[in-house]
């Protein structure tokens, strides 16, 4: 007898791996299914016993219809059983796979055809806890949601290889930095220096009443030190030390930070670099170059005067004016004899977070202080390494540079920062390059950075340079980078096997957690002492 077989209406085509290669996965889902770029999915290969992980990079409307233009000539709003042949094509980038021993491995093979594609649960990310670092910054994000139990933490060991934070204004980079700095305090694996020209990091955003700063952790820990150029009231209120940079800390080369110099002026700098900076400053402060004749100079710096004999009066007048301007504009902290540099370096070597609070100071003052401190730190480390019995990497210090394109651009990088970027790793000095214009950072410097924290970047050229410079391939995450929300970041670093989408903790909430951590650590210390 003939029979009429009821055919199965369960859709077996969706959520099954159908392509493509080791480096690109593809599957289809119902046309009205909710999936987001950035979602992490697992692909269960029951034949091989592996669980693959992939991140959604794109979603495309597709269909089985012969006519590719079927959807541009529809005649009504009704579509019956559309899901039979209309679907979303999902492009995903493989992250790696967990093998039968539970070890996470890089994607070196493809899942079996039609392997099931599923949404992972938190237990699926257990393997990540073994590779995560110790500086917690947020929780793992998948598309629009987060796995609150999967903490994202940057390994402190990789930070001497520099860190880059790439974010446009308003994408949450200050919040990231505050979270990062506060997480560094209980860890205390390295010192970190940050110059705060607006007070955002120290006391919170002054324009936002709810904003908090790191000063709130002052009473909970000795792992943080504050130096300020602010007034007495501010200093006392927040228990900060006064910042001083002495003439002796100065280098005549620091003039290049402030001024575009002519070749003659640069010659003078080269000439004067062999003298004590205090002598140079004093010479220029106390000498009149009117009708300049070095042989008639009667001051206390005859050697300097002698070396400047061949220069024109007008050139020396310019140099004098510039040095005087530097001294006067930094008079709040640039002092003839007093210096905080030693204390700052000591604090850094005690693996403290050192914040330099410079409210109401100019951008030039900020760079002036930062370049001098950076140079002193690097030289100190270099001397230690060259000294007998010293080991490289005895101390680890990270120097944060805000708006780093000012000092690390191609062709006009400031010497000391460039030196830190290119050679700092050998001496335990890492840079934290913070910029909203990565395209304006020298690519050679970007190539030295091993940890990338990418927040919203709207400019294509910025995204391109970041995606191609990172040690892990970020190019397939371009759509996700474009669509990152405020407070979200993609973190790519060497020890974590794939770039992690992260919902960065909100500092104002996270600070209580840090306080708790610090409190419990203190209690543990007391018990040990007892």
């Amino acid at each position, binding site marked *: *007898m*003939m*029979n*009429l*077989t*009821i*055919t199965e*209406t369960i859709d077996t085509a969706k959520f099954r791996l159908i392509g493509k290669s080791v480096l690109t996965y593809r599957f289809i889902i119902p046309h009205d299914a909710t999936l987001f770029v950035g979602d992490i999915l697992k692909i269960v290969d029951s034949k091989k016993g592996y669980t693959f992980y992939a991140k959604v990079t794109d979603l495309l409307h597709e269909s089985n219809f012969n006519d590719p233009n*079927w959807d541009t000539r*529809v*005649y*009504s*709003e*009704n*579509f*019956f*059983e559309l899901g*039979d042949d209309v679907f979303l094509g999902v492009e995903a980038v493989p992250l790696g796979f967990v093998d039968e021993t539970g070890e996470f491995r890089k994607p070196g093979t493809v899942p079996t055809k039609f392997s099931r594609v599923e949404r992972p649960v938190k237990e699926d990310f257990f393997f990540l806890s073994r590779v995560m670092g110790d500086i917690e910054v947020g929780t793992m994000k998948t598309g629009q949601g987060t796995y609150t139990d999967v903490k994202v933490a940057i390994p402190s060991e990789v930070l001497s290889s520099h860190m880059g934070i790439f974010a446009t204004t308003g994408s949450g980079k200050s919040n990231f930095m505050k979270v990062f700095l506060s997480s560094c305090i209980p860890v205390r694996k390295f010192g970190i220096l940050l110059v705060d020209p607006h007070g955002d990091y120290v006391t919170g955003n002054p324009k936002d009443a709810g904003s908090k700063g790191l000063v709130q952790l002052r009473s909970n820990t000795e792992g943080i030190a504050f130096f300020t150029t602010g007034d007495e009231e501010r200093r006392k209120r927040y228990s900060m030390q006064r910042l001083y940079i002495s003439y002796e800390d100065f280098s005549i080369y620091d003039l290049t930070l402030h001024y575009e110099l002519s070749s003659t002026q640069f010659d003078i700098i080269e000439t004067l670099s062999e003298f004590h900076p205090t002598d140079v400053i004093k010479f220029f402060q106390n000498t009149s170059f009117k009708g300049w004749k070095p042989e008639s100079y009667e001051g206390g710096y005859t050697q300097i005067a002698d070396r400047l004999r061949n220069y024109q009066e007008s050139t020396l007048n310019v140099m004098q004016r510039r040095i005087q301007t530097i001294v006067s504009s930094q008079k709040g902290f640039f002092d003839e004899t007093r210096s905080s540099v030693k204390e700052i370096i000591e604090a850094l070597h005690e693996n403290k977070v050192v914040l330099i609070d410079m409210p109401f100071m100019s951008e030039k003052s900020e760079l002036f202080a930062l370049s001098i401190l950076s140079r002193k730190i690097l030289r100190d480390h270099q001397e230690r390494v060259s000294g007998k019995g010293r080991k490289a990497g005895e101390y680890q210090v990270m120097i944060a540079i805000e708006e780093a394109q000012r000092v690390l651009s191609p062709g006009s990088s400031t010497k000391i920062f460039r030196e830190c970027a290119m050679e700092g790793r050998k001496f335990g000095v890492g840079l934290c390059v913070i910029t909203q214009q990565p395209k304006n950072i020298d690519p050679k410097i970007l190539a030295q950075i091993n940890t990338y924290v990418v927040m919203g970047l709207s400019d294509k050229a910025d995204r391109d340079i970041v995606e191609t410079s990172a040690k892990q391939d970020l190019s397939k995450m371009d759509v996700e980078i474009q669509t990152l929300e405020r407070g979200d970041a993609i973190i790519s670093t060497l020890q974590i096997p794939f770039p992690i989408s992260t919902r960065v903790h909100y500092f104002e909430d996270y600070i209580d957690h840090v306080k708790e951590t610090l409190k419990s650590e203190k209690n543990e210390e007391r018990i040990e002492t007892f």
Partner: protein
Amino acid sequence: MSGYKEEINTVVKFLGDRIPSNIEEMFIRLSGISKKDFFIVEAHETGTVAGVDGSNANILDAGFLALSAFRAVVSLFNENQRIKRGMTPIKFNFIGSGEYNDDFPKLFNECFGKDPGTRLSNADPYKVNSVVRDTLEYFVSLETLKTLEKEALLLIDGAFHVEHKSLDPIIEELFFRAEEKEINICAVTKRCEVTWGDGYPLIPAVMRAAEKFNMKAPWWIKIDDDWISGRRTPEWKKGSIFITLLHSCAKSALKVELPRYYGNERICKVMQKLAAVSCDGRIPGYPFPLFDAHRACAIKREVASDIRNRIIEGMTKRGIQHRDFKAVWEDIHDEFNHY
């Protein structure tokens, strides 16, 4: 001998003569219809609607022997959501050099548990395919009727006009079973072959007349048998013909058939449901359950190719050399197509 251009001109003239510019006036004159013969269809909820369609595909053809594959499908919808699909297995039919088709009685018996009574001639392969396909469609329709409830609508692709005597009682039984359960049935034609007068096509004439009367879709009109020309085997014709435009965006009106005994109220009900299931944005004006059945049913090239490969595999296992198989079944055109 006329040249290519003249040949084309002859064809154009012939086709043009079939659709004269005043075709609607000619049709109105012949039929005597007026605006009141057109009925506007009101929107109506669809309820349960089933669409039945059959398909066939040529698998092998050696000239003296051809093998075709057939199957039929039903798609059952409720309020425009598919509830289920049913499908017959793929059946095969040989058209050999013998006078009558040997496979048809077996299939008929398999479907209806009895002998067809009349043999099916192999003389017209097109008709053989059509009768075999209808046989499967009627089987699926009868099976579907068993599951449908009162007030449901069963749509069958084609016409209530059988092409072989053996199917005449089957269609009678179909009508009887439908009446028994108070289920409406309707045949919908994909391509209307009906003509009037001196062989003018019916659809454009009716559509143009509707336009002249300023009719807004959806509408329907009943076609009197007397207006139709070139009728074949009228004794096997079971339905009344209607032309209906089921959606304002429809590219063309459709010819549908309903059992002759349906009264006006019942016709309206069927038309309302037809319009309600014919509003899909892809093929407005065509009942979606039939479209769905058609898509599920069609024996596409890859299915036909799979069938051929399985046959070759089976023959190889039986020791028949592929060379011999090709000598019999392969069309030299397949070779030509490489170049």
